[in-house]
């Protein structure tokens, strides 16, 4: 079994004992069974159990292990070790308060998600069977419903950094459009009202970091464009 040693520089901060954050130099030996960055991080934690990060599914569907890897946001469990050369620099997702090490406080992120009313609104009495939807109508939800709420996109967005309390951010807006696009939802007009504001939607300046960083290959900017289109359409 071939092994290699990977050098890491990792952002460390434990408010219980550290006066200020520092970058820790640490290395770990990985073998051919270790495919992903998360595998190496689990080995790092075996060496130093105080290294703190979130992780769960280890297959890119739960959204726990988002972090900043060599300057770019991504999921540790979907990042190939082979794609990393030289010293690997790990930092927490940018722009959110840091609880400890690589663990950020996601309260603001989820607050924005909740603000778009992320649930189906349909005030008709529910029928006895499913609400019908053609395959083509259902296809409109592709590229939207797959979001795992990892926050890679919103925390890569300068507009979200400056106004996390006022700008919904790409993740929240992607979900806002997921419900606007759903033929079963009756609240399009209310949803557009909720976003018609100089900050909530219009802080998007098409910087496209969200598209670049999404580990699921989703395109929040296109969704934002479609929300803007819907606003124009109802204005004329």
């Amino acid at each position, binding site marked *: 079994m071939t092994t290699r040693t990977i050098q890491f520089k990792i952002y460390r901060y434990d408010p219980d004992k550290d006066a200020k954050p520092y970058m820790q130099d640490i290395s770990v030996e990985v073998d051919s069974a270790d*495919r992903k960055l998360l595998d190496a991080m689990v080995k790092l934690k*075996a060496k130093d*159990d*105080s290294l703190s990060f979130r992780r769960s*599914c280890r*297959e890119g569907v739960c959204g*726990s292990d988002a972090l900043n890897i060599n300057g770019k946001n991504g999921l540790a469990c979907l990042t190939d070790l082979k794609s990393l050369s030289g010293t690997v620099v790990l930092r927490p997702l940018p722009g959110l308060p840091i609880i400890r090490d690589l663990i950020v406080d996601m309260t603001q992120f989820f607050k924005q998600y*909740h603000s778009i009313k992320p649930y189906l609104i349909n005030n008709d009495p529910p029928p006895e069977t499913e609400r*019908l939807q053609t395959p083509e109508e259902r296809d409109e939800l592709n590229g939207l419903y797959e979001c795992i709420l990892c926050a890679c996109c919103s925390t890569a967005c300068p507009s979200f950094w400056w106004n996390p309390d006022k700008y919904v951010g790409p993740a929240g807006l992607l979900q806002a459009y997921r419900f606007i696009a759903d033929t079963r939802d009756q609240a399009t007009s209310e949803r557009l009202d909720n976003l018609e504001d100089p900050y909530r939607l219009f802080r998007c300046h098409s910087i496209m970091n969200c598209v670049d960083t999404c580990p699921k290959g989703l395109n929040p900017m296109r969704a934002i464009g479609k929300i803007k289109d819907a606003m124009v359409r109802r204005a004329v």
Partner: protein
Amino acid sequence: MKITQRTFDAVIVGAGGAGLRSAIQLSESGLKTAVITKVFPTRSHTVAAQGGVAASLGNSEEDHWHWHMYDTVKGSDWLGDQDAIEFMCRKANEVVIELEHYGMPFDRTDAGKIYQRPFGGHMSNFGEKPVRRACAAADRTGHAMLHALYQRNVRANTQFFVEWMALDLIRGAEGEVLGVVAMEMETGEISIFQAKATIFATGGSGRMFYSSTNAFINTGDGLGMTARAGLPIQDMEFFQFHPTGVYGAGVLITEGVRGEGGILRNSAGERFMERYAPNAKDLASRDVVSRAMATEIKEGRGCGPNRDHVLLDLSHLDPKVIMQRLPGIREISIQFAGVDPIREPIPVVPTAHYQMGGIPTHYSGRVVAPRDGDPDAIVPGFYAAGECACASVHGANRLGTNSLLDLLVFGKSAGDSVIEDVASHPKSLPDLPANAADYSLSRLARLDGQVDGESVHEVQLALRRTMQDHCGVFRFPDLLKEGVSEIMAVAERVGRSGIKDKSKVFNTARIEALELDNLIEAAKATMIGAATRQESRGAQARADFPERDDINWLKHTLWYREDNRIDSRPVHLKPLTVDTIELKKRTY
């Protein structure tokens, strides 16, 4: 240490599918409810379910709940309780339609209805031929479901305690459950959650095996708490090995791949399932397919340089089917196997996946434990649903797509039972015993005070290797005997293990140590159950007892933590309204 006391009508531990479904019932009914969860709800492992949720909607061809019930009883190798199975199969359409109304983005048929695909063991007309019963959202059904359930809870204003870990059950003098002790991970602070009703929806314990499809968080927390509180755990020897985990990585490849036409092949390129299950072939029950694969590998017909896996071939499928119905599988194959299934087969191997056993419950979600000669005596105040519970609808082997159905049906029924019980006992909260948090505090104090303990990481590796090597797809008498003594030795090591990190702030080392306390209880129950049961049934395949033995072993195993005591409960062979599905030999 300052202990905060919080009071609720109901506390739910776990925010996966079952916990969230219970929470919808309780929040919408107006009961004061707390949901405690180790991870943000949409990070729960329900998110990883892929293929579908079973319901006899009949959207593409004729189907009937009674056929579904027959398949589930047969799939369970007759160890499932037939009253619970009838209850679940009859409720399936209702809970799936509700989910659609919540906004679940199911795929659609041309008629606009919920899309359904075939799945292993699901047949029409009492076992005749495969039927399309698995309601699917591409191959991301669990993800779509978990998010839809969370979203409905946002609408219902459910109160979540996110990144809190429940540590122990609190029981009163009469054995009734009075709530839980829990720790806030961010601060390390301890609270008592006092409640009229406690629902466990803590998921499975699949991390006990070295190679597992399960998330890191699946450490059997509910089982550990239940066992430490002196209550039994049921049927843990029945642990499902999913036929198609990605070779090496363990990541799940849904049975829906075979539902859409995928085929398993050995090193000769042979579709070997034709020999093991002439009728259902690749869509036989999971235990049957996993044993067939293990046999092919054992007999030298495995693939690769070490002949240690088989191949799942989709290359004959229309690439459009793969892109439309199995996009997540393609992503996983490229990420974790380095193959694009449109062109190349996926290397797969049977991989630990699902615990059929768990906390014994009635189909109403109420937890039961034998008392005064009554094998089904209810434990007041205590409810369980989903993978941590054992109703038992899966018996000795679960059919694919019945787990997502289980968590909807029993999550809902546990919620309804709580509403009913709280309404019929409107009295104020029962008194807590003095020092209700002491046991949890002593466990934390041991971790804080332990110096030079063996690392938690090393001990959990030993636990997982012991289970993997001694309690796999096939079970051998000498390995089981050795396995029991080894797992008891690991349990000793767990009690002396230690962490270097003593911080109060988001101490994940401490969380992992507390998880190991739970995982070892689940592992002991599994290994000792497997060594005790002298027959082969469903997922328990004993080399020394190759046949099912209905005379001696048609019963549920109960394991108690104290002295590893083993007891049993009768299987409920009588359904609610229909005739018993009579015992017969199980072939596919």
